[in-house]
Structures are given as structure tokens and as C-alpha cells.
């Protein structure tokens, strides 16, 4: 399977791949850059969001008489009451984010022990207006709570009556309080990233080495050399696998840079044992071996570069479906069936590793299936490469 001719082809193909700007851009540069850019964009928009949250709420107040709520709001630093001639128009233009209407007799109703009526007018299609009404709701909630407390005090009742149950939350030993969100982010992003890039990282190389060779008319001379078809095919196959693995490593590098730019991007407080990282690495290489064979098969089948790209493009979506399907899968409760389904089984092991589970039985089952899938994929590739009607298809 791996003889001197395979090695010659592999070396030549890797030289060729690394001299191809297109392959370098799609397989190495994009995976390295996409996560840092994503982290930067998410970080900036989060900062912007938090910045808006820290600014006072720009609002208009409609009230026919003086009342305590108006006094409370005017004294509150988180509120900026703006005088406008036409509040509805100002809201449409987002000069103000929310209008508060306080009904006549508000204070009297509260004095009588009834509910005071107020109304929020806001633009539901604007996230900033929606957020402003939500913040104003919280601020008025504080005012409402202070009224409740003073009423209870007047009646001689302890405010403890409002909280009849005390809840204490304790996490397991060796766990950190902020780990939960980090685990959730990582268990969604990491499996998606690793599986997608392992599967599609070699796509550009597969296209070039299969149908590209046919289109350049270099395949026929190659088939007349002393090297057997299997040796030629294996050289090409391993070159595509290397490109796929490099794509995955590039994505991981990008992921690392992204976590430096924006620590919230990857989630903090998550550590994985070394054996889990090795298992994930091996299984991702397994995925690259399966998909490289499939991509090369499709590439040899295609008549032209364009046709190959049409066939290969949906493969990214095919890989993303299981990644999305298992997005909220709990790494501590993997259904047995999932260990037998391609892609999903690799994702299951990644999810287990993220939550600190190292189940050797599960890993061996997935590794076994991965070997079977590699064998099947290669069987089709070899068959396709030996088919005269495919190789000389034009």
C-alpha cells in the first residue's frame, strides 16, 4: 500500500500543494484567520452591547402631574429623561428609546393600596429600544420593591415573608463556579470546528489532485509510468489527508489565537486530560482519512473542476448536520447508538472529553467503526480509480 512510488507521488503532490496559493488560502490561511476574526467581531459587539447597558436609558416621560415615580426616575443616574415635542416621532427616530406614560392619580392609587398604572411605549423591532424598556422595567421594579417594603414596615410585617425559602447552590468538588458556561461554549464550538475542518480541510487538494489532473491532461502520462495505479492513488490520497490534517491544525491554531483575543470566545476553566486530547486527535485524523477518500472519489468521478466543486460543496453541510444535531448533547450521557454513527461518534468522544470523561470502551468502539469507514471509503476510491469509464470520462 505504501511503497517507493507512493512516497514519490506524495512528495511531489505536497510540493505542488504548497506552491498553490489557492490551496494555501483555503486550507491553511482561512482556518487560521476565521476564528480570530470571529472572536474579534463577537468581542467588539459584546463590548458595544455592554457599553449600551452602562449608558443611561434615553427616555421620554408623559405625566400629567407630579408623582413619586417621576421623582425617583429623575434622581436615578441610569435614566436620562429627554424633553421632546413629539415623543412618538422621537421614538421612531430612536432619539429616545422608550416612552413612559404615568396615569393620572398614580400616587393616590398606591396610597390606597391599589396598583399604580404606567405604560411603556417602545419599538419592538429595535433591539436597543427593546433593551431600554427591559432596563427601565428593572429600574421601576426597584421602586416597586421599595414601596412593598415600606408598606410591609407600616403593617409591622417582616420583609422576610417575601422570601420564604432560602436556596443554597453547591457544585461538586474540583469544579469551578464559572466552568458551566465555558463548557457549554466549548462543547458547541470545538466538535463543530474539529469535525468540519477534518472533513473538508483536504477538499481543495482533492479537487486539484483528482479532476485537476484529468483537466490538465497529466493523468494519462502518469498512468503510463511503471508505478501501479494503487501506488499512484495512495500517494495522492495521503497528500489529501495531510492537507486535511493541516487544515484542522490551522483551525486549532486559529482557535488558540481567538481565545487570546477574546477569552470569553472559547470559555474559561476547561481542562482536558492529555489522553483525551490524543484520542480526539487520532479520531479527527480518522475523519480526515474517511473524507479524503470520499473527496478524491468524487473528484476523480467529475468531468471538470467546476463539476467537482458542485459535488463537493454540499459535503460541508453534510458534516454540519450531525454537528448541529448533537449541539446540546450532554457529554456525560452519550446514547450507545451514537457511538456507531459516523461523525456523530467522533463528536460524542469530543463531548465526553470536554466534560472530563475518558471512556476507553467508547473510544475503542468509535476507533473500530472509523477503521471500517476508512476501509469502505478507500474501497470506493480504488474502484473509481480503476474504472476506465471514470478515468477517461470527459
Amino acid at each position, binding site marked *: 500500500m505504501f511503497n517507493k*512510488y507512493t512516497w*514519490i*507521488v506524495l512528495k*511531489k503532490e505536497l*510540493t*505542488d500543494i504548497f*506552491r*498553490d496559493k489557492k490551496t494555501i488560502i483555503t486550507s491553511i490561511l482561512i482556518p487560521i484567520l476565521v476564528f480570530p476574526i470571529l472572536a474579534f467581531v463577537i468581542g467588539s459587539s459584546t463590548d458595544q452591547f455592554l457599553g449600551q447597558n452602562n449608558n443611561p436609558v434615553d427616555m421620554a416621560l408623559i405625566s400629567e402631574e407630579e408623582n413619586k415615580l417621576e421623582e425617583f426616575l429623575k434622581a436615578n443616574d441610569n435614566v436620562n429623561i429627554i424633553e421632546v415635542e413629539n415623543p412618538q416621532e422621537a421614538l421612531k427616530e430612536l432619539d429616545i428609546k422608550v416612552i413612559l406614560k404615568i396615569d393620572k392619580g398614580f400616587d393616590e392609587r398606591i396610597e390606597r393600596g391599589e396598583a399604580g398604572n404606567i405604560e411603556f411605549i417602545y419599538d419592538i423591532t429595535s433591539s436597543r429600544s427593546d433593551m431600554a424598556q427591559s432596563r427601565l422595567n428593572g429600574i421601576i421594579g426597584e421602586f416597586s420593591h421599595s414601596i412593598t417594603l415600606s408598606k410591609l414596615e407600616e403593617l409591622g410585617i417582616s420583609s422576610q415573608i417575601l422570601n420564604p425559602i432560602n436556596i443554597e447552590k453547591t457544585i461538586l468538588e474540583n469544579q469551578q463556579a464559572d466552568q458551566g458556561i465555558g463548557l457549554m461554549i466549548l462543547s458547541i464550538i470545538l466538535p463543530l470546528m474539529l469535525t468540519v475542518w477534518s472533513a473538508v480541510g483536504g477538499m481543495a487538494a482533492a479537487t486539484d489532485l483528482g479532476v485537476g489532473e484529468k483537466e*490538465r*491532461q*497529466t*493523468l*494519462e*502520462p*502518469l*498512468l*503510463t*509510468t*511503471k*508505478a*501501479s495505479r494503487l501506488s*499512484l492513488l495512495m500517494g495522492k490520497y495521503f497528500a489529501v489527508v495531510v492537507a486535511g490534517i493541516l487544515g484542522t491544525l490551522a483551525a486549532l491554531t486559529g482557535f488558540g489565537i481567538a481565545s487570546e483575543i477574546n477569552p470569553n470566545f472559547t470559555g474559561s476553566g476547561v481542562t482536558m486530560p492529555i489522553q483525551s486530547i490524543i484520542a480526539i486527535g487520532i479520531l479527527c485524523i480518522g475523519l480526515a482519512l474517511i473524507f479524503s477518500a470520499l473527496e478524491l472519489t468524487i473528484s476523480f468521478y467529475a468531468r471538470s473542476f467546476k463539476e467537482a466543486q458542485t459535488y463537493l460543496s454540499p459535503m460541508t453541510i453534510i458534516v454540519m448536520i450531525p454537528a448541529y444535531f448533537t449541539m446540546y448533547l450532554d457529554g456525560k450521557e452519550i446514547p450507545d447508538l451514537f457511538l456507531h454513527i459516523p461523525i456523530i461518534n467522533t463528536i460524542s468522544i469530543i463531548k465526553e472529553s470536554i466534560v472530563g470523561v475518558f471512556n476507553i470502551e467508547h473510544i475503542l468502539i468509535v476507533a473500530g467503526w472509523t477503521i471500517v469507514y476508512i476501509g469502505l471509503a478507500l474501497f470506493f476510491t480504488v474502484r473509481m480509480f480503476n474504472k*476506465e*469509464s471514470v478515468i*477517461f470520462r470527459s
Partner: protein
Amino acid sequence: MIQVKGLTKIFKKVEAVKNVSFTVEKGTVFGLLGENGAGKTTTLRILATMLKPTSGTASIDGTDLLVDPEEVRSKIGILFGGETGLYDRLTARENIKYFGLLNGMSKEEVSRRINELSDILDMQEYIDRRAGKFSKGMKQKVSIARSIVHNPEIMLFDEPTSGLDVTAVRMVHDFIKRLKDQGKTIIFSSHSMNEVEKLCDVVGVIHKGKIIEVSTVKNLREKYNNMELEDIFVELVGDKNV
């Protein structure tokens, strides 16, 4: 020596080559003359073991192509016409070296041979330049070097001058003559009567997958009252078309 015995190739329902038999003696140039789609390329592809015959076989210097295809491939060199395919991102030297190594040569042998071929084919100026921006003529020279880097005893030329300009055509013709002088056995496929007449010792006329005549150019002339080869071809093919 090449011996072709009852070679037949059927693609689905199309019989591209029908019971073709001929012999090419060592050191001779055999011209396979036929119209487009006559079966020339399919015959050469079978001889180069790229295609498996549906029936029949052939032997190259005593090696049956069905028994030991790898050995057959090591004995032949093949040059295709039309758009010559090279690896654009590799230099001319790297292109030739790749094929030398894949034909079982050592690195030292290949290196020596490339220098030799570079002198013979006058490629010194661009031997270390990437092939992407080569002219058709330059590409054809690299292709020639690639096909003979392992110094095969038998050469197959599949319409090698197709699409080339006059200078490049002359270069290919000179090259074939040089190989002939070296005693190589050559099959040269073409639909150009002039080329075949100029270069070949023996002509095999192929039409609709069948060999309809095999003879020396001289004998053909005698048989057809000293007619031009083109007229002989038209008469032969015309008969079969009726």
C-alpha cells in the same frame, strides 16, 4: 518488437477496436493512419496498458501486457498530442524528474539524463523555470523529455504534432527521426498522410476500429499504381464507407 493479436475493445455497446492484429519489427516506425475516431488512440492506450482489451492481447518485447503490465510500461514511452499536460507549479526539471523516478530510475540516473535531454532538446534556458508560462513548443519539448527520460526501447506517439506550429512540428519530426536512427521501435498515429509518408516505414490503415491494410509505403504505391498516399487512403476508406 510489438505483436498485436486480435485486439478488441468494446465501450458499453460501441466497438472501438475490432480484432486488430499487426506486428512492428524492432527498429521500425509503424504509422497508424486513420481518421478521427478510427480507433488509433484506443489502440495506443491499450498498448500503454491504460485500457484493458475486451479480447485479444499484445506483447511488447516479449512481455504480454495482460500478464505483466508494469514491465510493459517500463519498456515504453508515450507522447500525446494536443494540449500537452504539465504540472504548472513544477519546473521543467521537476516535471521530468517525477516521471523518471516513477519509471524506476535512481535520483542520480534521472539527474544525469535530464542534463543530457536538456542539451539534446535545447531546454537549458528554461529547465529550472516553472512550466505554467511555457509556450506550446516549450511544453512539447518537456513532454518529449518526460516520455523518454527512462530511455525506453519502444515509443508510442499519439498524434504528437496536433495543434503545434510549424517549428514545433519540425522539432517533433526531427526527434522521431533521431529515435529511429537510434534503433527504437516506434508506433506513430496520425491522420496526416504527409507525416506518415515522411516518417514511417510501415503503414497500418485503421478505419472504424479495423485494420484494413498493413504495408510499406513503397508496396502500397506499387499496389495502387503509384498513387499519392492520400488518394490511396481515400480509396481504401471510401471502399469501406460504401
